[in-house]
């Protein structure tokens, strides 16, 4: 198991997605500094290939989020899991091409999502996201989504949109949405 990467003063000095005013800065500080934030991440399945941007633990955090965010076989066995569609791997590849500061901020966001102290603050549950039960993971996601603090809602949108984008752009789910897929045109004959 790998602990989340601590945040350095240099990282805190940067303007970032989660550093919006005093609240964001304070969250980053306590999130990176206190031991409670360093409880180990549950790693889950191995990435399918070498990661380009995310660390092994960050990949695990996003995988855990995506598993709850997309329909998935737990609710309906006809839907593939986020893992089956490699949502985390696709997000890693996508953000590796983004501006480097966007990649850094996304990594910080995943650290916050996993952070037990942040969980304590918003959910009274000092447990890393990856170690929560599925029901409690959903509750934590709802806390982020419904927070009165904009940076939490921003963080929620970042992870949920990426999970949905990578999942629902996969041809494997087209039939489940009643979408037959692109029509046949001469340049791309249907197989």
């Amino acid at each position, binding site marked *: 198991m790998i602990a989340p990467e601590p945040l350095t003063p240099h990282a805190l000095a940067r303007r970032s997605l989660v550093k919006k005013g005093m609240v964001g800065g304070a969250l980053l500080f306590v999130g990176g500094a206190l031991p409670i934030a360093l409880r180990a991440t549950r790693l889950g399945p191995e990435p399918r290939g070498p990661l380009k941007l995310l660390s092994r633990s960050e990949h695990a955090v996003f995988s855990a989020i995506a598993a*709850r965010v*997309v329909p998935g076989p737990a609710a309906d066995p006809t839907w593939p899991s986020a893992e089956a569609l490699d949502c985390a791997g696709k997000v890693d590849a996508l953000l590796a091409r983004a501006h480097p500061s966007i990649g850094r901020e996304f990594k910080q966001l995943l650290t916050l999502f996993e952070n037990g102290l942040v969980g304590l603050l918003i959910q009274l549950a000092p447990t890393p996201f990856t170690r929560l039960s599925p029901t409690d993971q959903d509750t934590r996601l709802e806390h982020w989504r419904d927070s009165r603090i904009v940076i939490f809602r921003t963080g929620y*949108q*970042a992870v949920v949109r990426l999970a*949905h984008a990578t999942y*629902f752009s996969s041809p494997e789910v087209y039939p489940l949405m009643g979408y037959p897929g692109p029509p046949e045109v001469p340049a791309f004959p249907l197989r």
Partner: protein
Amino acid sequence: MTPGTIKRGQDISGNLTLDCDFCVVGSGAGGSVAAATLAAAGARVVILEEGGHHTRREFNMQEAWAYPTLYQDHGNRATEDLAIMILQGRTVGGGTTVNWTSSFRTPDRTLRLWADKFGVTGLDPATLAPHFEAVEHRLNIHPGSRDDVNRNNQKLWDGADKLGWRPELIHRNVKGCARLGYCGMGCPLDAKQSALVTYVPDAVAAGADLYANCRVTTIKRKGHRVESVSGEFLDEDLDRPSGRGITVHPSRGLVLAAGAINTPALLLRAGVGDDSGLVGKRTFLHPAVPMVGLFAEPVEGFYGAPQSVSCHHFADRGTNVGYFLEASPTHPMLASIAFPGFGDSHRHLAERLSFAQATIALMVDGQHDDPGGRVRCGADGRIRLAYPLGDGLREAARDAIKNMARLLLAAGATEVISLHAKPIHIRTDAEIGDLDRAQFGPNLHTLFSAHQMGGCPMGDDPKRSVVTSRGRHHQIENLWIVDGSIFPTAVGVNPQLSIYAHARLFAQAIARGG
């Protein structure tokens, strides 16, 4: 006349230094027509385009390819708080390559507003008319046909018509359109008459050289003139600098057409041209708030011409911010990131995708007291856009979702759903009042923008504008801007044709000597 060439970043083996008459940055609606006009007038033109050169054989109609490849920030552009998703092209042809083909002339009342309140002179309907006509001819823009109307747009028509809101057919820039429905992912048939297949080839045929995968980073100014423009070629797979660069010395001038957001960002990054302190301010987005109607019969909004019907009944609301209604295609990824919720609640909507109709209300920002957004760009090149949703826009959004609910119910929807984090479900007219409790604010509901405008406004007063009413920079005599950033407010209709026509007018003036 010797034709020019289109080169991609991977075709460039070393650093380049070029001399020309004009350097044009950007190859979308503004840059392409400017380059074609200048080249046709005999000027030596070099076009620098940050996006790649992608053509119809690559347009595979898959969102997983199209958005990361053809859009800014790999399809992830948004305001810095992620409250507004921004769809903006980044490829040869710019936004026109992924535009949904809706073509409107600039409304007369918008031109009057710019003249009356923003000091714009000489841009009346009669002056612009020949430029609209020329562009409409080149892009084969023609009145919409009832045959263009898919079921997604038909619902919009039906609802607006029943309520007496006078829906209209949209003019489209297509030739031989098969109405596949994938305009936003690049037309695989080249039926869409985008800049990619019209003005860019015209410019190249007239001798212009286009360099794709080339990001401009530096503009050198000497006194009141631009001396040179420098950029870096990008490795297309990594989207990182390849180590090869280009420096262009344009003897007659620099024409910026990188689009609203990127043009002001470039000036700010280069530290050039913000003498007025206005660059990047008053950026407008036509923020679009969507509503989804569920129908008993299939709608299949992913097929057919994406936009063929509009409703401008609410465009002029007096002292309140106006909005206009259009339909949005419902491809799986685009719809899923707009749908609220996650897990099971999200799945219930996703499963009904083919029965969903999406109507959007595009708010006409900037024509009242709302200040729009602000673009910033630091030395690292990261572009940030702050866009607060003020009271005027929140009022408009609330009015819009209520009227969209009325429209969709009138069209026969069994249920209408607001795309809030906690969606509000409407099944009867009596429930529309429930939308009064809807909250508006960052990330409380879905908002997106496909129209970016402002940030380098035109006008005759150097204290209130960045460029003249002919696009020339007030302080730098050989710098022009010919993209959507020049508009002092949102246009009030889909802005693509307005950009083409203004750029053509400006380019003709530039070719004559400014």
